[in-house]
């Protein structure tokens, strides 16, 4: 049997088509990876062994019958536990959904199902995606495969750690303020936050509805393009989904030659020397590949973090109101009346960060404060959108570091939520603007991977992925693997 480790989607597909491996063998390999690594890395919240193997058998039957299979057929993947999976526990990494078995699957899960991809596990993340290290999970503390004393980033930390550790060939995560890109950077993998509305949010536990996006975490831009092609598209069940001209993210001209790349001044100004050197070296590779590089000043980006931390908790405070212990999820059994049911179910069901955001958001939306906070934040958001539009009129892509530092130590920010929020400083503006951004591995600082984001115009996800692919043709950071 061939070596099954660290396969790309294309490689795995070829091996399946050439009958060098079976889908069951490939699935078994990844289930075995879970068994080997779950104790060390604390990746999963639910393992879907029997359904995964049953699906793999179907794919093998198809191949045996000589039928053609799609690129994702038989490809094992993991999903953040924010995605509803019919009949498979979905917790949002929260106690309040401890035993929740959804009656239906998210549109994204259905699409991946239809494409033949095989869900092997639901993976860990920060509770309701609130966090930057995955330490806010109500269940486990996921480790960074590059250094198990460090966080994998967050909130899609389980997705990034799994992909870096070769548990599943890809993962899908959610990104509201950097939750795909920042853990991808921390774990040395590729993570795409698509244009807002490109991928349906239906069946995905909501964090902040006006910023939530869904995207792939992969080991290459090529894999990200394949997964995005399967999950993107207008969905009648999600009125905020959009229609774009070209859904072919996989093909096209990968060259960076002649492209103009703008380096966001506000982001590089915040870097220390080590991180700056590594980032500059990555940009230099783009130049070598033919890109014209210039600096771009985007003054309103400085306000993006405060703006984000008003808009997001406001929406969260409302989105989390439905968890009341009545229709689904955790309901406190010691309560003797309705008020107690509400207070105790929510009091015990939500973790500290969810409560903090409910309180911040409720405050920001309150009469008398609405104008000063929410309304003002929405005005700032408009300015940030304008900044991006203007900048992307001048250049083809914007680039910046994904995070000011590589992976932080576990527990480092435990007592300081603001320090935790600051890890999002380079990613949140992109969500406020709704534009696509892919984080790609761009070097190492202290033997820890760092990422660079390539940002494009709304709906230009294909171009962003082609630029990332071109970058990965001239670099090999994405091919580095952690020692496990």
């Amino acid at each position, binding site marked *: 049997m061939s070596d099954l480790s660290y396969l790309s989607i294309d490689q795995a597909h070829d091996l399946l088509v050439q009958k060098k491996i079976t889908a069951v063998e490939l699935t078994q390999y990844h289930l075995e990876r879970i068994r080997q690594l779950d104790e060390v890395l604390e990746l999963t919240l639910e393992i879907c062994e029997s359904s995964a193997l049953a699906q793999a058998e179907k794919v093998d039957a198809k191949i045996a019958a000589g039928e053609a299979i799609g690129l994702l057929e038989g490809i094992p993947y993991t999903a953040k536990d924010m995605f*509803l999976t019919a009949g498979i526990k*979905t917790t*949002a990494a929260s106690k309040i*959904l401890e035993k*929740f078995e*959804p*009656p*239906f699957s*998210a549109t994204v899960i259905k699409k991946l199902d239809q494409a033949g991809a095989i869900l092997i596990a639901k993976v860990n993340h920060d509770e309701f995606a609130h966090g930057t290290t995955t330490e806010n999970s109500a269940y486990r503390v996921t480790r960074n495969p590059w250094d198990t004393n460090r966080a994998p980033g967050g909130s899609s930390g389980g997705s990034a750690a799994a992909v870096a550790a070769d548990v599943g060939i890809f993962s899908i995560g959610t990104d509201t303020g950097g939750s795909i890109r920042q853990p991808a950077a921390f774990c040395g993998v590729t993570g795409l936050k698509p244009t807002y509305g490109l991928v349906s*949010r*239906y*069946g*995905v*536990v*909501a964090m*902040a*509805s*006006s910023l939530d996006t869904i995207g792939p975490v992969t080991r290459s831009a090529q894999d990200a393009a394949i997964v995005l092609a399967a999950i993107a598209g207008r969905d*009648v*069940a*999600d*009125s*905020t989904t959009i229609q774009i001209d070209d859904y072919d993210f996989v093909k096209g001209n990968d060259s960076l030659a002649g492209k103009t790349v703008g380096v966001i001044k506000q982001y590089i100004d915040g870097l220390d020397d080590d991180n700056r050197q590594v980032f500059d070296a990555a940009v230099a590779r783009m130049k070598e590949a033919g890109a014209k590089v210039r600096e771009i000043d985007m003054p309103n980006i400085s306000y993006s973090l405060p703006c984000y931390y008003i808009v997001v908790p*406001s*929406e969260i*405070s*409302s989105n*989390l*109101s*439905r*968890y*009341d212990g*009545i*229709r*689904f999820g955790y309901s406190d059994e010691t309560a003797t009346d*309705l008020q107690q049911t*509400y207070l105790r179910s929510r009091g015990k069901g939500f973790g500290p960060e969810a409560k903090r955001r409910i309180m911040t958001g*409720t405050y920001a*939306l*309150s*009469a008398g404060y*609405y104008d000063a906070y*929410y309304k003002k934040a929405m005005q700032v958001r408009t300015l940030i959108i304008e900044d991006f539009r203007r900048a992307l009129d001048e250049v083809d892509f914007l680039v910046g570091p994904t995070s000011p530092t590589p992976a932080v130590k576990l527990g480092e920010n435990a007592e300081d939520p603001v320090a935790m929020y600051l890890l999002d400083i380079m990613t949140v503006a992109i969500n406020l603007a709704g534009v696509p951004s892919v984080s790609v591995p761009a070097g190492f600082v202290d033997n820890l991977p760092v990422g660079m984001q390539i940002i494009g115009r709304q709906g230009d996800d294909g171009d962003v992925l082609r630029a990332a692919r071109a970058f990965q043709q001239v670099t090999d950071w994405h091919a580095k693997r952690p020692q496990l």
Partner: protein
Amino acid sequence: MTKYTPTIGIEIHVQLNTKTKMFCSCDNDSRTAEPNTNICPVCLAYPGTLPVVNGAAVRSAIKLGLALEAEIARDTKFDRKNYFYPDLPKGYQISQFDQPIVGEGYVEVLVDGEWQRIGVERAHLEEDAAKLIHPAGKDYSLVDYNRGGTPLIEIVSKPDIHSPSAAKRYLQEIYNIAMSLGITNGDMEHGNFKFDLNISVSDTDELGTKVELKNLNSFRNAERALSYEIARQTELLEKGEKIDQETRGWDDAKSKTFSQRGKEMAHDYRYFPEPDLPPLKITDEMIDEVRAVMPALPREVRKRLESIGIVVDDQDLLIDQPQTLQIFDDAADALEQPALIKKAVNWLVGDYQPLLARGPSKLTGAHLAELILLVDSGDISGKIAKDIFAEVVNGASPKSIVADKGLKQMSDTGELEAIVKDVLDKNPQAIADYKAGKAQALGFLVGQVMAATRGQANPGLVNKLLVQYLQA
């Protein structure tokens, strides 16, 4: 007459009769459904679910807006109204805050013979809450989510109403408009049309302290409760006392309003734009499409009925009964002459009503016109017409009933003359009596002729012929 002027503002909630709910595809008609059967993950607010706007509800709102002569917002949006309550599964209601789909408009109502214009501040779309059931004597409540997500239009009047009768007229007018537009089932007992009344009195230009009247289930009670409230508030003010800002209910048996609850802490609903729904663009095409299928509105009907001399009570009845109005309109088209058209109204507000109350009617305008023309031409008597009306209401054609039963009135002088002569020949005593001055003898002879013709003779003609012969 008191120096205090009442000022009334009204909020009306109309449940729309769209096929599906406001934001999901559940059946919107739960009249015969078991509790919690017309539900889905969306209207139960399961994690990950998202709302989708019901286009039919939007069209209903546009229809209503056009009927209210209101500006239809080209850019409208939905907002979240946040509050915790067991009937609200999401913990917020999707409503419209600062960009309602329907802007300022008005209705014109006839109050005590005068046309009055009453302003509408706005109308917006929202979803209804679930129904709470509190079983008597139990320590729990039940929630029926069937109603949760029913499309509602809330119509807010301007404080333009200054009498209980105007308030009642306004309520009836909005109800009739909604019914003629066909946007609601209008079943008031089942909460299809609910309203809250705000009433204050003042003897200055400034408004007085307002009292909210809730849970009134009929227009008549609204009028009575407002009259009671005006008297109560006026009396308090005249005694130099203050009005409490409060919510009051109506006790029908005692014909009194009563305090339900005092002024609550102002609710903070933390409104913000619904991020799950993009702003809604209403295009000219959408408005034109709705305009093309607008039915005649109550105000237009009333003005038309008034122009042909139909009295207000009869106008009210026809406007309240859209099917009866349709029969009237069809009959009026066939009858043309105003005198005959009035006869159609008389039939419909008179003999027709008890028959209609008894069961479904198959009366058509064509049949009613036919009946009226048969009487007018003298083919049948008014009495025969009344006798056969029940059958006409059951769907039979008056002409065929008359033909089948041989009921046609004898107006042929030659034929009648023979019968008259025959009757006279058989009743010499009556002739003698008549000539002796006993006038009632003529009545006897008429009766004999009518009997001989089985009631089909034209009584006037019989009378005339008999007198001719007797005086010859």
